[in-house]
């Protein structure tokens, strides 16, 4: 497939494929298409990041991550971000807008859903099955493990057998070793975390230098993000990445086929890109927003929304945090952030717990002196005056966190809509989140918080602090354009193709029918890989309409 010039639409060039969003899914899709010889343009509202601009080495680091380098776009308020109306949401969304997408900020905890996650309706009688199985996705998990450079230890019995991660595991450090010993004694599952962070140099990227600042940009480039792992190669293969390009409408022709995307540049100028096939990869908040913005008099509820589900079934992985403090200095600030070790002990359903589904645990560091002095957990008051230095010494380097990611089942009332009156820097309506945590998910979190406390006490912790449902921890928005077989109850099919608009695809975290409880980036990447490989194969066979 080669680049074509516009037919009948002025001077606007037409390409084989247009990708919206240069994040996790957008990177996989753009590279795969470019390598297959397609002419491809990717529109990204943000810009490239330089390693040198990340705040890790700066003494002001801990202050900067509260504002300019915060995970929450509403706090950062950069022109490339869009604000999010969140007053009706129990959880605030976190993301990054720029080349690499939220991977610029993610922790690099690189894990897979489990087989049961794809069969929730069949096994537990709730929510829905996915339109494909773990086995169908497994080859793509293995492909993206290589593309992103996963470091980990093979043989985890909480997963079906398969290829080992391509690189050896990162060191887990003294705190995690203590907790691992406790789990070995308790008979509870634990495994060294697999992280998309290099333990050995690879692909021209450096090895992890244990800054512990993964969630605010990796200054080594050791953490995989598509601005390093995918886009440079995609550009070498001829892909065109347009930064600062904010897509605001997918345009249809009279036959109901997508013809292109209209976008705005930061100077306010309007542009249009035509394409045979359009792939949305703008995240589970950005993609439904764009589909809703693309409403026309003929489809007033938004594009590709015959099911009425665009924007609905938002899932966020409710997150709880349990911190164990120990007597000795465990250098708790050191190492990669993602997961030192993980536990899937309470991942699968056990109906005797009073809820179905489960949670995934990741052990991660505690941060530097400012967070020791002024805890982010609102239930822990700082100590001032004569006790201050003791308070800090007992915390700094001596704590380690169990991060608990709970599964939240899809609820059509939890959703992304367009906000009234709040706009981004281009004047486009911002997304609004409506999200209420179910009672069942609350019980699930509470149960896991109690078990995590037991884990730390078994490991010899002197003191444990809990935070059930952390509000500003919406790192995993999912599910707002769900995949499924039935056009009346899903937005796209299992290959990401819209049931309503045959040359429109969604390949990002929006497609998840259920959330599972494992961090989603590797599943998002694997879904995009599977969908785009299929698209390329079908186009080669001339099955996709042009």
């Amino acid at each position, binding site marked *: 497939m080669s680049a074509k010039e516009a037919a009948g639409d002025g001077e606007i060039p037409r390409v084989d494929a247009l990708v919206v969003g240069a994040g996790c899914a957008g990177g996989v899709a753009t590279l795969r298409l470019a390598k297959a010889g397609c002419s491809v343009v990717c529109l990204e509202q943000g810009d490239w990041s330089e390693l040198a601009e990340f705040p890790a080495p700066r003494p002001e680091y801990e202050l900067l991550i509260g504002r300019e380098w915060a995970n929450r776009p509403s706090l950062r308020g950069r022109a490339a971000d869009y604000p999010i109306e969140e007053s009706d949401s129990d959880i605030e969304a976190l993301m990054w807008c720029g080349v690499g997408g939220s991977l610029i900020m993610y922790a690099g905890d690189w894990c897979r859903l489990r087989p049961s996650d794809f069969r929730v309706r069949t096994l537990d009688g709730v929510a829905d099955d996915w339109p494909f199985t773990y*086995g169908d996705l497994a080859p793509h998990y293995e492909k993206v493990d290589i593309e992103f450079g996963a470091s980990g230890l093979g043989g985890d019995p909480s997963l079906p057998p398969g290829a080992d991660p391509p690189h050896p595991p990162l060191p887990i450090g003294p705190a995690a070793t203590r907790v691992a010993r406790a789990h070995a004694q308790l008979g509870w599952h634990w495994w060294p975390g697999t992280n998309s962070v290099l*333990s050995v140099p690879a692909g021209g990227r450096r090895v992890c230098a244990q800054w512990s600042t993964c969630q605010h940009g990796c200054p080594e480039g050791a953490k995989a993000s598509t601005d390093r792992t995918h886009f440079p190669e995609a550009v070498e293969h001829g892909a065109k990445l347009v930064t600062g390009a904010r897509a605001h409408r997918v345009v249809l022709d009279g036959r109901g086929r997508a013809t292109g995307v209209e976008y705005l540049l930061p100077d306010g100028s309007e542009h249009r890109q035509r394409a045979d096939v359009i792939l949305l990869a703008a995240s589970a908040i950005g993609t439904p927003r764009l589909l809703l913005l693309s409403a026309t008099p003929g489809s007033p509820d938004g594009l590709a929304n015959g099911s009425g589900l665009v924007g609905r079934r938002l899932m966020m992985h409710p997150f709880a945090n349990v911190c164990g403090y120990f007597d000795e200095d465990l250098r708790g600030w050191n190492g990669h952030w993602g997961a030192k070790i993980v536990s899937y002990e309470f991942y699968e359903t056990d109906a005797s717990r009073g809820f179905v589904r489960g949670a995934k645990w990741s052990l991660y560091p505690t941060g530097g002196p400012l967070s020791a002095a002024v805890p982010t957990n609102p239930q822990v008051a700082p100590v001032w005056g004569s006790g201050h230095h003791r308070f800090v010494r007992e915390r700094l380097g001596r704590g380690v966190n169990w991060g608990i990611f709970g599964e939240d089942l899809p609820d059509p009332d939890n959703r992304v809509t367009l906000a009234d009156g709040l706009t981004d820097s281009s004047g486009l309506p911002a997304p609004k989140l409506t999200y209420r945590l179910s009672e069942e998910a609350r019980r699930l979190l509470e149960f896991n918080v109690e078990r995590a406390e037991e884990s730390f006490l078994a490991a010899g912790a002197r003191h444990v602090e809990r935070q059930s449902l952390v509000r500003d921890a919406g790192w995993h928005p999912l599910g707002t354009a769900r995949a499924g077989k039935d056009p009346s109850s899903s937005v796209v099919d299992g290959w990401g193709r819209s049931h309503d608009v045959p040359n429109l695809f969604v390949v990002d975290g929006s497609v998840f029918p259920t959330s599972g409880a494992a961090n989603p980036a590797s599943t998002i990447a694997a879904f995009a890989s599977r969908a785009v490989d299929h698209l390329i194969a079908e186009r080669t066979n001339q099955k996709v309409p042009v």
Partner: protein
Amino acid sequence: MSAWRDRSGLADGAREKLAELAELMIPAASGMPSAGEVGVAGAQLDRVLGVRPDLREPVLRALSNTEPTGQLLANVEATDPEAYVALCLVIAGGYYMHPEVRRRLGYDGQEPDEVRAEIIPGYIEKGLLEPVLAQGPRFRAAPDETDRSRKADG
């Protein structure tokens, strides 16, 4: 120093009040310097506000509280939580950014320390994974998983 005072529109008193308060919040003890000794209300304050200009307004609001310094913090905490957090961040932020404070704490968190993957992990040597492996598969089998002849569906 003066930039903050000028832009704040407050007299010198605000910075002095902050200095007094900071000294009460972080006194010299346990081998650590006091807030005043490392210039929390001086150069450190300017550095903090340089990267967190959003803290200026709530901190000035806190300092406009007329309670005597001894009671000011508790009063602000009770009446204006946002200003309280800003005050804590400005004082602790400036203090813990100071190199001497970091040295005495032994904090080297923001220095590169490259991973050496060739070192055999202690958990392998100590056999900590053996009990996990001994339990066998821990995932729940899902229908269709074994039927690889089934045509993968969209």
